[in-house]
């Protein structure tokens, strides 16, 4: 079973809490976005409370916005080599 490299950009307070904006991960080739979030939560405990934890949360919709090429992704989506994700504050607005 091989591994793939993916990139994550943290935006706004999430970057400040993690202490960095750009992250790179080498993950198992079958890994899902949900698995990647688990790794990010382990590496950056300050982000843990903002990362979706509920199994039923398809999009991680509630706590943060996760985009790939401007579109929201599902947590059960598979990662692919070179995938670039942005993790941003939720789109609550007013």
């Amino acid at each position, binding site marked *: 079973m091989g591994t793939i490299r993916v990139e994550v950009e943290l*935006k*706004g*307070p999430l970057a*400040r809490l993690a202490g960095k904006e750009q992250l790179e991960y080498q993950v198992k080739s079958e890994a899902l976005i949900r698995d990647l979030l688990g790794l990010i939560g382990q590496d950056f405990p300050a982000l843990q*409370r*903002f990362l979706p*934890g*509920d199994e039923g*949360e*398809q*999009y991680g*919709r*509630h*706590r*943060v*916005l996760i*985009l790939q090429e*401007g579109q*929201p992704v599902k947590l059960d989506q598979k990662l692919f080599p070179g995938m670039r994700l*942005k993790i*941003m*504050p*939720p*789109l*609550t*607005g*007013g």
Partner: protein
Amino acid sequence: MSGYHGRILDLNLSSGEMKEEKPEPTMLRHYIGGSGLGARLLMDNTDGDTDPLGPGNILIFATGPLTGSRVPTSGRHAVLGKSPLTGVWGESDVGGNWGTALKKAGYDALIIRGRAPHPVYIHLDEEGARIENADHLWGQDTFATEVLLKQEKGEGIEAACIGPAGEQQVLLASIMHDGRHSRAAGRTGLGAVMGSKNLKALSAEGQRSTPLAHPGELKKNLGEKVRGIRENLVFLSDYGTTGGIISLEETGDLPIKNWLQGKWPQVEALSGEKMAETMLKKKFFCGACPIGCGREIEYRSEKFGPIMGAGPEYETVSTLGSYCLVDDLEAVAAANELCNRYGMDTISTGAAVAFAIEAFQEGLIGVEETGGLHLDWGAGEAVVEMVRQIGEKKGLGALLGRGVRAAAAEIGPRAEEMALHVKGLELPAHDPRAFNSVGLSYATSNRGACHLAGMTHALEGSIPLPQLGYPEIPDRFGTGGKGQLVARMQDLMGLFDSLKLCKFLLFAGIEVGDSLNWCNLVTGWDLDQKEFLKAGERMFNLKRMYNVGCGISRKDDLLPPRVLTHPRGTGGAAHNLPRLGEMLREYYEYRGWDEMGLPTREKLEELELEYPWEQ
């Protein structure tokens, strides 16, 4: 009658007469409360000929069946009347604590008629209502008015009031609640209606609890739900409504430079994080809310002096900030405080200032009109000064205070394209070019351009709503299916406004099922999803019928040309333009309206609404 006290107070300020009405159980089941109940009352008491600023208009304050219960975010109420800004349906739904106080005083709703011969305020408690002299309050700003009312009536009261803008019948005036926390019934100029009645304020207090049909079951349900709501809305709680502004900019949803620009990296300067670092004193909560998105700020600015009260919300940092290219949070917060003190809608006020800046830049108005002020993009001090002029109804401010539609009509045809409104209500801070459904929602919302009537940016942006029929996030740039999507969301949001729930609950996964369940647990009804959603549809159609009576039809279900024809070329929605005609056709069909946008007889009969064209 669980969920209600069964008391609507009808108060005539011209005669001082007061009477109490007991709402029929069928009416409550049909219209629920808040916005829906208010719709029925407004329809029954005013019409297309009513002068919004005349004594014949009424002002309604209506709570919902959940108000006063512990259901999360239910400490809300609706304010309704015919709008002097738009001339059609006027409504504003507001949080804070005043609605709970009205319910605890023992009332479900309040109808105010007539015009007092001199300034008055109304005090409501469990012993009844009293009309009191308000000569000493007239001229006070909203912060001072609350302080004076508390000195007079005791710290336990909650206050709703107008500021100087409402007194002078500025058409952008709002009704403010909770003093410095400035929870606003902001939109559609209902503060001017209150001013036209010589009604300065309403104070309310009481201890009556809302009767609950199934208190044990409700308590058990809420225990589980509240934890989930807190966990899912942690970002909103930590950073307030401006916490997400960088994401809104990223997706192309943030309007920039009076809707001309697609990207604006300076947005971080206005973020909730920036506010937290510089000005935040503490957060605050509306009644029964476990989230607390309110920001109380305290800051000493070298340019603007002390700044205090509720910090600017997302809509406000957009309209007074990005609309005007102002990236100075101090200026935005100072302008926001002025709006709160004068009692003005920050959305319409900021939009009017952005309109004026563009008109100035294009040479349509000059320093003669602005009183020597240079209205440049990004000029924070000029924005603050312009807000002051609007609040004091002075100079160019007097014209802008009538809204962008009226201002453009006066300035001339070239100004029309700079005036972004629907049915006379200025566009709020979600761009229809980023979410097609938002365009359709603005075009069809009963009060004019309104993001809250449909909240469809939430669904197209990030939240699937499986119980409403949307298990996947719809393509935000797609056109097909948007008629149905917008209609369903409007019906559901009407129910939230009637039960009195905050729409941020959507972001915690609260949608049809939970709201229906809470409704039944509180009222003891046995509504199923079909009847529940039908009530939402009924309210929406009733409001439409009100507007039809005011002359509204297909010709008014429009969007400003700029958002229909001007792709911004940069940002997260660089090239998209909403195809309104296509979406509107599908919307009318789904709603059962004819091609002119009028509800058909069959549809009205199905909804048990009167068909007005019989004779």
